[in-house]
């Protein structure tokens, strides 16, 4: 899959790191880069269910392109949101719906993809794709 330039740069940056601890530290730093959804906009409607952390996401279209904003109290989840923004923002919603979240695997963060009812990342990614699907009719 060909990723946007900014995401590919992030993937390369993570792929060069072999220590999982260091990768999580990098995600902590990425958490500050998210298209932020401020806490005062967090509500039941934009809450991602099934997370161990409090995570929220809001999505919209601009000129027919998909954009997400997110926020989480767990910094690693918010860091993954920031990376996800690189993957999905500025794409047509039809493309977002078909995306596979393999960029996380390429970044050496496969543990984040573990299927689990408490997996914040997968629940977040599914929610983003659900939002994209519902916005497709509005594009």
């Amino acid at each position, binding site marked *: 899959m060909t990723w946007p330039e900014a995401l590919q740069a992030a993937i390369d940056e993570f792929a060069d790191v072999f220590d*999982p*601890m260091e*990768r999580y530290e990098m995600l*902590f730093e990425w958490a500050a880069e998210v298209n932020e959804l401020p806490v005062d906009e967090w509500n039941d409607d934009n809450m991602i269910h099934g997370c161990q*952390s409090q995570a929220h996401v809001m999505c919209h279209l601009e000129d027919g392109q998909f954009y997400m904003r997110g926020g989480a*109290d*767990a910094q690693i*989840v918010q860091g993954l949101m920031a990376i996800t923004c690189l993957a999905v923002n500025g794409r047509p919603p039809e493309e977002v719906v078909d995306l596979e979240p393999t960029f996380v695997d390429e970044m050496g963060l496969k543990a984040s993809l573990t299927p689990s009812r*408490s997996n914040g990342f997968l629940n977040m990614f599914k929610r983003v794709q659900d939002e994209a699907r519902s916005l497709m009719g509005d594009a």
Partner: protein
Amino acid sequence: MSLDLDAIRADFPILSRKVSGGKDLVYLDNAATTQKPQSVIDAMTHYYEQSNANVHRAVHTLAAEATEQYESARDTLADWFGTTRDNLIFTSGTTEAINLVAWGWARSNLNTGDAVVITEMEHHADIVPWQLLAEEKGIEIRVVPIDTESDTLDMEIFSASLPGSRLVCVVHTSNVLGVANPVAEIISQSHDCGAKVLIDAAQAAPHEKIDFTAMGADFVAISGHKMCGPTGIGCLLATSESIEEMEPFMSGGDMIETVTMEKSTFATGPQKFEAGTPKIAEAIGFAAAAEYLSKLDMKVVHSHIRGLATYTASELQSVPGITVYGDHSVPEGSGVVSFLHDSIHAEDLARFMDAGGFAMRTGHHCAQPLLDAYGVTSTNRVSFYLYNTKAEAAAFIEHLRYIVGKFA
């Protein structure tokens, strides 16, 4: 007297594996499930390699061997738990054992207006079945709260809840706090009021020798996988009187006596509640786990596990920003220590610990009402078992201090 930890650790092959980029695995999620000794793995493998067949049916050699091994497992476990084979019903685990009491005993013995007493300390498995039964039967659920200052059940409210109750359901040892409840007093008071008692011993059986007869409860629910056995197997210990009063809530093969197109009659005793092809290899593995534990002094096992929890809780108290839940100053209790940091999210902390090779649990631990009582939605939890060492506990604290120093 102490445990020969080198010898014990050598019995558990998984403990030598590396995780997270070559780090030694430090497995501290034993309250979720314990690791399995080679003898349990071998017992199950041997059964599948040599004796696999369905039980209680055919007359061929393998069927006879499988039946003998399966029923021998029941004898071994009944002996381990201080009861007889007629009082041990195999289930898939504690959850099914509690559901068997709810749907097998309470559904046919309780009536509208009868009360069931539960506590705020219960696992969801000992809350939800009673809520479902309450909806169906109109029974009353009385909840005994926890005193979050002392981390103990409010025994005054417990006593006041008993008159008119028919069943009391209490967790022996909390899976969140590691706190052990005064089970003997609970059983005595409940029986004085005419109520039966169900004890959820999922977190107690792994490190305390459960003697069903001496305990005096009417029902005890146990999981095999939390005490070195395989997943998918556990048991309900029940008094003969209680078993007589129970009706099957699952039906099919193996639990019948005769079936015609008009009517069926059922087997008697435990088999009445073991519908379908049973968990044969799992029962054999469960018995092998009890045999493994029987070679150890369980009082020493308990002291070892509790000692690690006490040490860890004490060290955690000195880490800036950490709150520890539960009273770990008393000898009673388990190897569980729950804690939270005031600025590092529980999930982040768990991932940082995993990156260091430390397996621990994060979340509500299927005990949301208990966490609500403490005003939190999740905790980090470490839980020690017989193969954990003080060096592992110290390494855990050291890595935690490093993370707190770096990210808090």
